[in-house]
């Protein structure tokens, strides 16, 4: 693929070898190292959540109790949810790639509050440790939603899990504060508000949600903890409390949290689409407005989790219509990405395969989201596998594809090396098909009426469960291959050079891997970040010419 004559060489000194020793990593204020450490931890958590997922799928292969008891099953799906949602997906792209790339993309030396950034990492570690400790205590069996009054009455170790999630929440708040401030105050000359790279916009929107929604979750978790510890009776009907209030407060956070998971993914895709089609975005304005729009309108839709919960009919109608508005922004993005491909120069690489997978799966995930936001249709689908399939299409099909796409796209940026491209493309295709095989049957299971969180099920559901489990094993196999070749590439991959993707993104103007101070000279960017119509050589100087 390389067109240049000379093989690129690694830069002599970069952020990875600027300082040595474990201590230099543990006390670093360098956003790139913090991002890398987040990445490592997140991948560990993903592994843990994935093991739970496979165990659940194996248990569901046949009706009845096979490899685990009902109690163990209930605990496993709870921990699968808790680990995947709070310890992997919510911090995934913002904390790992956002940390690494955001300053690079706006030409800053670091984030605004580097010490706070490190504190965020340690809070995450602390929160994850408390949660894991809770798992060792037996773990909770409430589902990741901790619905009261069950979560206040059950005898399992709910407290440490709640506490862990609470602490992780503060970690994401600190990250959010940091990112918003950085974007506002630290842009290099030339990076005006209309020239901010799209990934930065996505992280910005995500941070708004994190900052505004997470405290509500924190408070509501405290209330549940107090209710468990001291019999507060806040959500307990026996004391006049209202269990629906819990659902309101919980979903005020947790619905926007879905956008915390998907928005950064959309940012990754916006970047990658431009880079691999070598095209300016079909409409920069639409992509930005829809990002900020999703961040804000996402707060108005939480009630669609409560259509059949006994909330009022009027409320259901209002929340249904508001949910349609947020879906529009997603639809806009899909059309814009498609339009960006028009008259481009499309280069099929591993990240681009993930882009295609993302767009395709997000379309179905989004449309099934619209479907369950239709009040009457939701009566049937609510809390069935249809919903399970829907949010896995969004969270795995979209967010995780974007995460993998980002990992492949910026792998050369982070480590200065490349992974085997053909193997990458093959695995990406395998993962997309594995994914569809896993979750398409779950849509049909939902249609049949299989409720979620069932350890055991009537026999008629079995064939589709078998198909789903088969797909899941394909998916797991795919992840294994990726892990192997990426770890191999860390040491033995081909040296990438500054800009292996020929991208004009700001982050590629620095060396790969970047020096500790990100740029050797204080940068300024006189051109927009996704401009491929201009015969400028500046972005390409990175190629070892």
């Amino acid at each position, binding site marked *: 693929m390389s067109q240049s004559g000379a093989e690129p060489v690694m830069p002599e000194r970069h952020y990875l070898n600027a300082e040595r020793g474990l201590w230099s990593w543990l006390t670093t204020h360098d956003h790139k190292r913090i991002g890398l450490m987040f990445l490592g931890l997140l991948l560990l958590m993903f592994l843990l959540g994935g093991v739970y997922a496979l165990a659940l799928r194996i248990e569901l292969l046949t009706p009845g109790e096979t490899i685990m008891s009902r109690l163990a099953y209930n605990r496993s799906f709870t921990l699968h949810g808790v680990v995947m949602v709070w310890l992997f997906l919510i911090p995934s792209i913002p904390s790992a790639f956002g940390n690494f790339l955001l300053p690079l993309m706006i030409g800053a030396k670091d984030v605004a509050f580097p010490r706070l950034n490190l504190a965020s990492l340690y809070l995450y570690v602390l929160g994850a440790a408390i949660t894991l400790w809770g798992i060792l205590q037996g773990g909770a069996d409430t589902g990741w939603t901790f619905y009261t009054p*069950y979560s206040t009455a059950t005898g399992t170790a709910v407290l440490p899990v709640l506490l862990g999630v609470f602490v992780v929440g503060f970690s994401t708040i600190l990250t959010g504060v940091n990112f918003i401030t950085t974007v506002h105050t630290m842009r290099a000359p030339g990076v005006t508000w209309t020239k901010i790279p799209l990934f930065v916009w996505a992280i910005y929107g995500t941070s708004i949600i994190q900052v505004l929604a997470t405290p509500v979750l924190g408070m509501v978790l405290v209330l549940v903890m107090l209710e468990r510890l001291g019999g507060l009776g806040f959500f307990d009907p026996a004391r006049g409390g209202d269990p629906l209030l819990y659902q309101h407060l919980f979903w005020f956070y947790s619905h926007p949290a879905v956008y915390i998971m998907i928005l950064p993914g959309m940012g990754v895709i916006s970047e990658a689409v431009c880079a691999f089609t070598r*095209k300016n975005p079909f409409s920069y304005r639409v992509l930005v407005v829809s990002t900020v729009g999703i961040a804000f309108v996402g707060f108005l839709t939480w009630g669609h989790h409560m259509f059949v919960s*006994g909330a009022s*009919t009027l409320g259901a109608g209002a929340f249904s219509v508001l949910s349609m508005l947020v879906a*529009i922004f997603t639809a806009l993005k899909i059309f*814009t990405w498609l339009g960006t491909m028009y008259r481009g120069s499309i280069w099929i690489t591993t990240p681009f395969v993930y882009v295609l997978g993302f767009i395709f799966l997000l379309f179905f995930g989004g449309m099934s989201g619209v479907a369950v936001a239709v009040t009457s249709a939701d*009566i*049937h689908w609510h809390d069935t596998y249809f919903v399970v399939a829907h949010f896995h299409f969004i969270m795995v099909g979209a967010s995780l594809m974007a995460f993998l796409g980002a990992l492949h796209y910026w792998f050369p940026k982070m480590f200065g090396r490349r992974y085997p491209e053909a193997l990458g493309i093959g695995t990406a295709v395998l993962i997309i098909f594995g994914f569809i095989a896993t979750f398409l049957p779950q849509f049909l299971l939902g249609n049949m009426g299989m409720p979620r969180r069932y350890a055991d099920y009537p026999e008629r559901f079995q064939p589709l469960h078998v198909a789903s489990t088969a797909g899941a094993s394909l998916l797991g196999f795919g992840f294994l291959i990726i892990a192997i070749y990426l770890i191999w590439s860390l040491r033995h991959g081909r040296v990438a050079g500054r800009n292996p993707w020929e991208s004009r993104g700001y982050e590629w103007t620095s060396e790969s891997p970047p020096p500790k101070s990100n740029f050797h000279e204080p940068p300024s960017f006189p051109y927009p970040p996704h401009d491929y119509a201009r015969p400028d050589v500046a972005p390409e100087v990175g190629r070892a010419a």
Partner: protein
Amino acid sequence: MSELLRHLLFLPRAGSTLADRVDGIHFFIIIITFIVAVCIGLTGFVFLVRFRRQQAFAMTPHVQAPMWLEGLFIGVPLSFFLLWGVMGFRDFVWAKNPPAGALDVYVTGKQWMWKFAYPDGIGSVGELYVPMNKPVRVLITSRDVVHSFYVPEFRLKQDALPGRYTEMWFQVKRPGRYQVLCAEYCGLDHSHMRAEVVALEPGDFEAWRARQKSLPEPGPGEEPLVVSGADAPGPLAELGRAVATRKGCFQCHTVDGTPHIGPTWLGLYQREESLQSGERIRADVAYLTESMMDPAAKVVAGFNPVMPNFQGRLSPQEVAAIVEFIKSLRPERPVPPAAQEPTYVPVRR
């Protein structure tokens, strides 16, 4: 046509009038989704082939979406979404507002069973008898945690909240048995919290009702026999008492609250206990079972770890029976003072 679609989409047969409406909008959304998916897929494929990379560092023209196209991108999907939203909401309101003259049935969810009762006092556990072709309003509540009353073939689902009644109505189209599931996670046996709706011809239903009424009338203040049947110590609990006697449990445990070598079983179920390790645990089914299988694991504070291990000495059935027996040993719950009982308000139609 709709039967074919139902088969393709794995939807169960439509048992109620609500099901037809829900399926209608379901088909509408799915068909549009697939048409648009094909369009997007074809466009993407054409672009992939037509605009594939020819050379490195290719320059591409600056293409900017025109305003009218952006308007189209917003307008077309939004009008579909809003149309679905409005259509769905119309059906939703319809499904939430029972017609006058509907038969009332009280549904109570309880870990992990469904109980049904009619205003005239008759009731049943696990089987809801309704007449076909007649609107039935279900007034749903829960006695412990949140459950959800779900009949897939009716496309009917409504959460059961403790302390409140929620309502929904349906009209069965043809006689038969329809499975009821619990759709809101409610604990250990969530997946086994099942029941059945039995739809009868109106004549058969009246006959069933008359037969139920002729059962011995409960005394004043007593609950009808059939309803309370699930609460009374069932045969399993009786078996548990026998097993416990045989295995010598009563050498250490009492059932009347007197302190002895081991904790008393009276009111033990769901009691919050302090452990020797300083932690607290709720004596749920899992803990009780564990205490039989591995007594030394979690010893209640103030007791010595002297209990023998019953792993392998009790069959699963015997364990279940003992647990059921312990469950039945609940102290009388304090009845809330009369002033705090909810006052009767005629149900709003």
